[in-house]
């Protein structure tokens, strides 16, 4: 503990802004000097000093960061207004400076987002967040106007979670656009955003979004509490935040969900989930997140129930294939040869005759190769795409077999496993299953089916022991809730989903109008 304590103290020393939660000075020159000193005479600080013509030459300074503010807006609506005419303050007023301040703020500058404050902390935070600051000589407070105008990415199609029938927009890196996207889809006045600023240096905006009266407060409380406790120098992405705020277990199973699809966030919030937005990240965290959520996509709800259920069951089977197929191959060909049909066994034996390695090592080689290819294709420059596929598939795959290093069967199993990995809708679970593949492969090569069986039992026990925001991770399966089964392993018709999932423990569980007429309709159907 001592080590961490020392570390914390050192962290404090290098945060000069923290000491600045003090009011401003009265003198403008002092203020400007101090600001410039604090920011270190940076080259992107814009500072325009004016003398108000109609107010007895009161000195005013307009501050902004170049690139963060929209210069056109600042020029037209702030500097222009003040430079032209301010003849409403009486010349000999004793408090002319304060009058000028009030006049400018209340009746001159027509920006919608305008605030005043006295604290230096607010000044720095807003200045560095794209606000224009107006300081008036002789007044110990300042005005700030939201004048953000930095370059942003336009809203494009989702890259990771593509969908056939769903909407084609996705979240972007600017948190305001994301909350606006959410508002557009969820015009509920009960929608709430709890604001947090995470990171001593990065000062990242983090919003906890929920629907009051629908979302259970305990999740909101846990989210707020964990965010408040978070004291780091900075976060860059949702994925980092997830690692800080998820329940602490030694596991590779993802227990929080990140999505870039607004429709997914809306549907999750309507079910009772809490959404956490992070500035600078196009992903939104949904919490609490349960095991069955791993295998569902938004397309499930847009397709016919039967087809959606088929796809879901297929995803479960695919997860099993990814985890167990290489282990199955290794253990069958070294321990349980009696399970292979004779004709196929002879073919396998013929292929393995010239192979110098054990089956386990052979399978491991294929696994490692595919993993290298995955990583390489992720990191390679886009222009090298074709060369990559030629090297990967043709040269490596074919020549490996011809050189007798691996058999066709191992290549087939490896390819099927890798291909199946991409069926899993959620990238995090597909990464987790890749690890499990390796674990089970080692157990299978060591102990055969006995080891795989024991390993699988341990895996299930482990899954049942996990929690997500204090709730059991396997919720609605274990502990079982029959009413929730309409949307777990199968996706039954939307009309049958009359209540919000029990697992999210919402106070208002009615989801559909349960009028008698409606019920009659469903009964007939």
């Amino acid at each position, binding site marked *: 503990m001592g080590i961490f304590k020392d570390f914390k103290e050192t962290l404090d020393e290098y945060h000069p802004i923290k000491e600045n939660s003090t009011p401003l000075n009265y003198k403008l020159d002092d203020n400007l000097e101090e600001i410039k000193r604090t920011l270190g005479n940076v080259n992107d600080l814009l500072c325009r000093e004016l003398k108000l013509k109609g107010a007895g030459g009161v000195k005013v300074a307009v501050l902004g960061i170049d690139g963060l503010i929209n210069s056109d807006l600042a020029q037209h609506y702030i500097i222009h207004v003040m430079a032209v005419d301010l003849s409403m303050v009486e010349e000999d007023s004793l408090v002319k400076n304060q009058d000028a301040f009030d006049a400018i703020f209340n009746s001159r500058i027509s920006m919608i987002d305008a605030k005043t404050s006295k604290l230096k902390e607010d000044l720095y935070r807003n200045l560095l967040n794209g606000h224009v600051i107006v300081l008036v000589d002789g007044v110990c407070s300042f005005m700030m106007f939201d004048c953000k105008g930095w370059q942003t990415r336009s809203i494009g199609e989702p890259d990771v979670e593509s969908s056939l029938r769903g909407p084609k927009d996705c979240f972007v890196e600017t948190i305001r656009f994301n909350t606006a996207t959410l508002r557009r889809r969820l015009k509920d006045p009960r929608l709430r955003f709890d604001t947090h600023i995470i990171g001593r240096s990065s000062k990242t905006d983090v919003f906890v979004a929920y629907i009051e009266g629908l979302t259970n407060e305990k999740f909101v409380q846990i989210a707020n509490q964990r965010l408040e406790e978070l004291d780091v120098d900075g976060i860059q992405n949702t994925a980092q935040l997830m690692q800080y705020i998820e329940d602490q277990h030694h596991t590779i199973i993802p227990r929080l969900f990140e999505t870039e699809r607004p429709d997914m966030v809306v549907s999750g919030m309507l079910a009772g989930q809490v959404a956490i937005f992070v500035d600078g990240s196009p992903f939104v965290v949904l919490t609490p997140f349960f095991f069955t959520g791993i295998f569902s996509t938004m397309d499930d709800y847009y397709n016919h129930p039967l087809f959606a259920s088929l796809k879901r069951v297929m995803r479960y089977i695919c997860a099993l294939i990814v985890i167990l197929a290489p282990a199955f191959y290794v253990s069958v*060909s*070294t*321990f*349980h*040869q*009696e399970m292979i049909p*004779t004709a196929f*066994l*002879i*073919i*396998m*034996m*013929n292929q*393995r*005759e010239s*192979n110098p390695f*054990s*089956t386990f090592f052979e399978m491991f080689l294929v696994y490692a190769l595919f993993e290298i290819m995955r990583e390489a294709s992720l990191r390679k420059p886009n222009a090298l795409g074709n060369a990559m596929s030629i090297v990967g598939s043709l040269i490596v795959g074919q020549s490996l077999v011809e050189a007798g290093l691996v058999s066709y069967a191992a290549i087939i199993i490896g390819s099927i496993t890798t291909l199946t990995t991409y069926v899993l809708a959620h990238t995090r679970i597909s990464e987790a299953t890749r690890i499990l593949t390796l674990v089970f492969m080692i157990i299978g*090569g060591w*102990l*055969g*089916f*006995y080891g795989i*069986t*024991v390993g699988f039992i341990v895996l299930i026990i482990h899954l049942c022991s996990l929690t997500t925001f204090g709730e059991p991770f396997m919720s609605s399966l274990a502990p079982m809730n029959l009413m929730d089964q309409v949307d777990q392993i199968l996706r039954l018709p939307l009309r049958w989903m009359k209540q919000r999932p029990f697992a999210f423990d919402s106070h208002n569980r009615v989801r559909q109008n349960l009028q008698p007429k409606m019920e009659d309709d469903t009964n007939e159907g």
Partner: protein
Amino acid sequence: MRVEKLKRFFSFALALLLLAGCMEPVELAKMGIVVGMGIDKFQGGYLVTLQIVNPAGVTGSNPNILPVYSMHVGGQTLLQATNDLANLATQVLYYSHLKVVVIDEDIVKDDGIDDIIDFLMRHPETRPDVTVLITEDTTASDVLNVVTAVETIPMGKLDTLTNINRQRTGMIASLNLYEVMDRLHTDGTNLVLNMVSLRAEEEHLPHAEQDQKNEEHQKSVEEQEYKLWPSQEEDNGEIPEGAYTAENMEGLSNSEAKFTPGSEGPTKQNKEEITPPMDIKIENLAVFRDNKMVGKINSLEAQSYNLLLGSKKRYWGHVDIGDEYFASLLITDAKATTQCFLKEGKASIDLKVRGELLEGNYPINVENPHNLKELEEKFVKDIETKTGAFIKKTQEELKSDISDIGIAAYFSDYKEWEKVSANWSEIYPTLDIKINVEVDIYSTGEIKNYHNLR
């Protein structure tokens, strides 16, 4: 209470996991798959021949080697022999894919089949679906050494012959290891097994010089100790080199020289001719009394055997009408109800047979029900004669109840059965067995009349 039960259940389940076997890894490349096993008589013990797959030969990646090779060793017991074989083999012998076990007829005639079945059932690797066959006028090692034309693995042919053809002809009794053991240890029934023999073209049949060679060979065998491996046979120059991957496998030694295959049998030449000089066939069936083989029935009698057991397979019925005409019936469904009354010393078998008229030249109009009835009666008479002759043979010549009449006796009066079961083989021949046959021709095919209808 429930928690206690659950705890107990899980502790048992965990114990089961700990009891799981199969903890010995064997790499595929180091395995020799045994597909056939031949057991011959040898100096008071057994001569075990194994047929082992040569993967490169089966898949055709190396055309210069045969798909299988065989090796043999003699031993006092089967375990000793198989152990010695494991010692000699360069691979780990793997019995889980064993398809066919061929047993020499001398063993089952003299010593009984019990010990062999016992060994096979106890063996941890063999499966119960192994097909068991008895040799006829040949030795098991010779049967294992015939290269067949269609099937790359010779034992695959025997497997197909017994298991697939059985469903189509009704002339074969196919029993796997489990059924063999079942029939062997059930009172009131007896075992019937297929007999496999070698079929050779005339010019390849053994000649006088071959017999002489066999005598010489017999001497050489007697000189040797239990282990025949490696059995060099320099005098047998007819077999070309390279016929077997294992160098020493050219010579095939027979413990008792009987029918030795022609030179082509165990070589590749055998499948390079349209009519293979040497082939294997299943003709007769071996009938057992208790543990020992007591006689044979031919394939026609085998039909009666299968009919009386009521196995729903295909048979053909044939009836001669006068000297000139005949008619043939394809029997597709047979149902037999066996009853036995021990106190009266009587038994009856009601046989209901359904079939299609397939072949014949009897000039009647088969569209006329009256004519069909007449035809059916002729078939009834024919089947009654044949099955009656078959039952008579089992009673008088074989003295072995292979038609499950003892089981029927047990079901009708088990107290009486307990008294007689010990000496059933003496009581069975004295039974008065009646066979009632019903024939139903349900189809006469597309052609309504015979071509020479008057």
